[in-house]
């Protein structure tokens, strides 16, 4: 483990906050970065909290990029024969909208929450491999930027986010867009894979004493499930992307029908990754609302075990349903029947979750904060998305609906309604924890209602448009086939376009809220320590948490540990009495603070290593020499990394006897 602590010595106990040791001594090839303030403290940081915030900021930026792409799409489709975008640009737009939202917004935003909160929720001081964590973030940023430079370099990818072959091979998509897409996702894939391994090890190895798996906060549980999905899903898309790259850049013929290849190979590889990916997107949202609903209902999560097991079941069955994206692609009836039934199976654990959320609120004492509103919104909207999902689990019915707007409606209700609303619930809930400031509840409610109305205006009509037979990925629709009467395509397309701008205003209100909260940081009041009367461990420390998270690593006795320290339940009457405030509990913890907390030290290597990768990417596309240059940087950075212990020796501190340190990182990175 990278975190080294020594038990506090009794003589020093009670003498205030522990001294955080900052590295100062040179070690390895480069002098270690030592800044604790300014931009250097962010760029070279390995602190999971700073990385979490950076993940969040960058993901938010890409959310806006993807949002603008969505608005352009809706502008184009607001009227018949739209002329806002050319056909080519429209194809690039929807490809990049999906790619951006999936890979550069929802996944990294979930990573932001996971990075920030998992160590806090399990009572750890950092993740297992802090430098790998930093490397993951820089890979994500480098990959995302690399992907988007394609706009300036001859056009972005135009094959749809699923990049079906052979339409995305060099003959049919001659710009470099698809190359940028493949290589960019390869780089962000490294971020996901390293992040996943890191978080799994963190969760399994670094929980506070007493926290058994079944006492672990539900958000951490869902994150654990997602990371397992990532570990096994990412390599499959890696293979697919390598085959794509070899095909486009090195003349191989994996998907070239004239050479005898089978284009369905790509579809299988893509969806074996792509379906678990869907759950990778929604499970963080599920985890967040499973935290938020109990807190604001003042009740424990109903059927915690069922929620945990259903989450795991979704993760597991999620592997057996990929071909339901291919019901129309000409699989035999036996495969179609099997995948159809398997897909229905997945509705069961999903239903369990919705039931449990509803029953969590049942009999509670509900406090309608913005966060709670988003959580309730998720339960309602996701239910719609889930049920429309059942209608096309029925394969024959799906042959009418697939590749129409009905599907677009379905997955926006699940991903926007499930993942995005969940993430916004998380923003409002954890904002005071992360920044020590409360977001305005008044603006928050505006934000909520605009987004919820906007999403139903945008995606609700798409059910109708789809059932009326409007296919997806169409640069325009024509009056001739729009029909008349209540269900005519023209009216509902306009409604959807208006709705998309309502969502945009909602997002703008959120940004305004953030700006207002932080513009005069010194004047706005500090958030209370425990503003929501929360239940889990991350609230049992300062807001924002100190660099070392906890003064003393808490010992856990129960699920909802923090709640049980604050409240006493009378077992005879069921009466719940408050026995302590958060401040008192924190003071008690501080009193037994650990001494000599040794934190992982900042490092130059993660960012250097990560930015060598897009260099190699440009090399693949433009000049093979750059690959060599990038490869050399990678090798050097790895050596530098391997030689540098994760915790700097410090002259005023003797290294701990057990050696500790970074051995596992060395092995993982090689």
């Amino acid at each position, binding site marked *: 483990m990278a975190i080294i602590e020594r038990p506090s010595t009794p003589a020093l106990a009670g003498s205030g906050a522990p001294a955080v040791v900052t590295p100062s001594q040179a070690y390895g090839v480069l002098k270690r970065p030592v800044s604790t303030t300014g931009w250097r403290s962010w760029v070279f940081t390995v602190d999971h909290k700073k990385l979490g915030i950076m993940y969040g900021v960058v993901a938010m930026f890409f959310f806006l990029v993807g949002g603008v792409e969505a608005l352009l799409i809706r502008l184009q489709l607001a009227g018949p024969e739209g002329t806002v975008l050319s056909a080519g640009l429209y194809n690039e737009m929807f490809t990049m909208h999906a790619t951006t939202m999936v890979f550069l917004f929802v996944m990294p935003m979930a990573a932001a929450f996971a990075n920030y909160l998992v160590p806090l929720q399990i009572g750890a001081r950092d993740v297992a491999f802090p430098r790998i964590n930093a490397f993951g973030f820089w890979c994500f940023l480098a990959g995302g930027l690399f992907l988007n430079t394609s706009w300036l370099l001859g056009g972005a990818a135009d094959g749809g986010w699923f990049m079906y072959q052979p339409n995305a091979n060099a003959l049919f998509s001659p710009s470099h867009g698809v190359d940028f897409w493949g290589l960019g996702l390869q780089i962000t894939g490294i971020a996901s894979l390293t992040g*996943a391994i890191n978080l799994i090890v963190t969760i399994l190895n670094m929980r506070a004493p007493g926290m058994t798996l079944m006492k672990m906060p539900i958000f951490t549980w869902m994150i654990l499930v997602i990371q397992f999905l990532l570990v096994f899903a990412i*390599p499959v898309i890696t293979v697919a992307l390598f085959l794509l790259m070899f095909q486009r850049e090195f003349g191989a013929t*994996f998907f070239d029908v004239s050479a005898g290849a089978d284009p369905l190979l790509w579809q299988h590889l893509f969806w074996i990754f792509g379906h678990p990916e869907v759950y990778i997107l929604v499970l963080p949202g599920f985890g967040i609302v499973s935290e938020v609903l109990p807190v604001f209902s003042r009740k424990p999560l109903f059927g915690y075990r069922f929620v945990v097991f259903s989450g795991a079941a979704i993760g597991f069955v999620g592997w057996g349903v990929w071909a339901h994206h291919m019901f129309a692609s000409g699989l035999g009836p036996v495969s179609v029947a099997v995948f159809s039934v398997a897909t229905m199976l997945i509705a069961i654990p999903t239903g369990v979750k919705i039931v449990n959320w509803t029953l969590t609120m049942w009999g509670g004492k509900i406090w309608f904060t913005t966060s709670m509103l988003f959580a309730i919104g998720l339960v309602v909207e996701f239910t719609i998305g889930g049920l429309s999902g059942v209608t096309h689990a029925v394969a024959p019915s799906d042959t009418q609906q697939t590749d129409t707007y009905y599907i677009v409606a379905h997955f926006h209700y699940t991903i926007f309604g499930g993942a995005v609303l969940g993430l916004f619930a998380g923003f409002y809930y954890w904002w005071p924890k992360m920044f020590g400031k409360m977001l305005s509840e008044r603006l928050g409610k505006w934000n909520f209602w605009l987004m919820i109305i906007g999403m139903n205006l945008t995606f609700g009509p798409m059910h109708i448009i789809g059932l009326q037979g409007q296919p997806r990925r169409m640069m325009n629709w024509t009056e001739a086939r729009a029909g008349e009467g209540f269900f005519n395509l023209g009216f509902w397309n306009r409604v959807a376009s208006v709705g998309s701008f309502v969502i945009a205003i909602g997002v703008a209100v959120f940004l305004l809220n953030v700006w207002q909260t932080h513009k005069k940081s010194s004047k706005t009041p500090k958030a209370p320590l425990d503003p929501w009367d929360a239940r889990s461990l991350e609230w049992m420390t300062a807001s924002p948490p100190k660099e070392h998270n906890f003064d003393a690593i808490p010992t856990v006795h129960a699920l909802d540990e923090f709640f049980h320290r604050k409240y006493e339940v009378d077992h005879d009457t069921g009466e719940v009495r408050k026995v302590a405030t958060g401040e008192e509990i924190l003071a008690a913890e501080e009193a037994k603070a650990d001494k000599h907390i040794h934190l992982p030290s900042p490092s130059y290597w993660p960012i250097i290593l990560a930015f060598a990768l897009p260099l190699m990417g440009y090399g693949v596309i433009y000049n093979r020499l750059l690959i060599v240059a990038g490869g050399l940087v990678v090798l050097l950075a790895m050596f530098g990394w391997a030689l540098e212990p*994760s915790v700097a020796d410090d002259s005023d501190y003797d290294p701990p006897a057990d050696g500790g340190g970074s*051995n596992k990182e060395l092995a*993982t990175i*090689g």
Partner: protein
Amino acid sequence: MAMWLFLGSECLLFGGLISTYMLYRGRHPADLGPDQIFDIPFTSVSSFVLLMSSLTMVLAVSAAAQKDDRRTNLWLTVTALLGATFVGGQVYEFTSFYREGLGFTSSLFSSSFYTLTGFHGVHVTVGIIMLMALVGINKRSSVPGDKAEVVELVGLYWHFVDVVWIIIFTLVYLIPS
């Protein structure tokens, strides 16, 4: 544990590559297929070399566990050399296939064959770099952390790469198409 997770992930990577190969192994011109091109005795020898390197890796791990730096370094070096021999054999094999007319882009069979075995070769090469780095660092006796554990983890990776080769060798070379 991280290494185990990583290797789990690698299983799917090779799984995908092997599936691709199995799908396309029969798609080649009649005179340039696996049956014509493979030199089984030669590949058997190099496979045996790689297998032996697993044995020397075990020796290195046990030496490290006994904190015997000299023997650890020795066996690590031998492992790396055996690995390098294997990679050398692969390079030779590729060159001779190429001379016989089997380019990377010749057929679906050749593309998927080179991709699969090439990926494996890269894994072996990475393993060799890890071994050499370990020896180098060990000589400077500045291995961060627990030395035996590091050696064991590198060993785990090495054995994995070895096992993958046994699977590839069986599926690609031994089973007739």
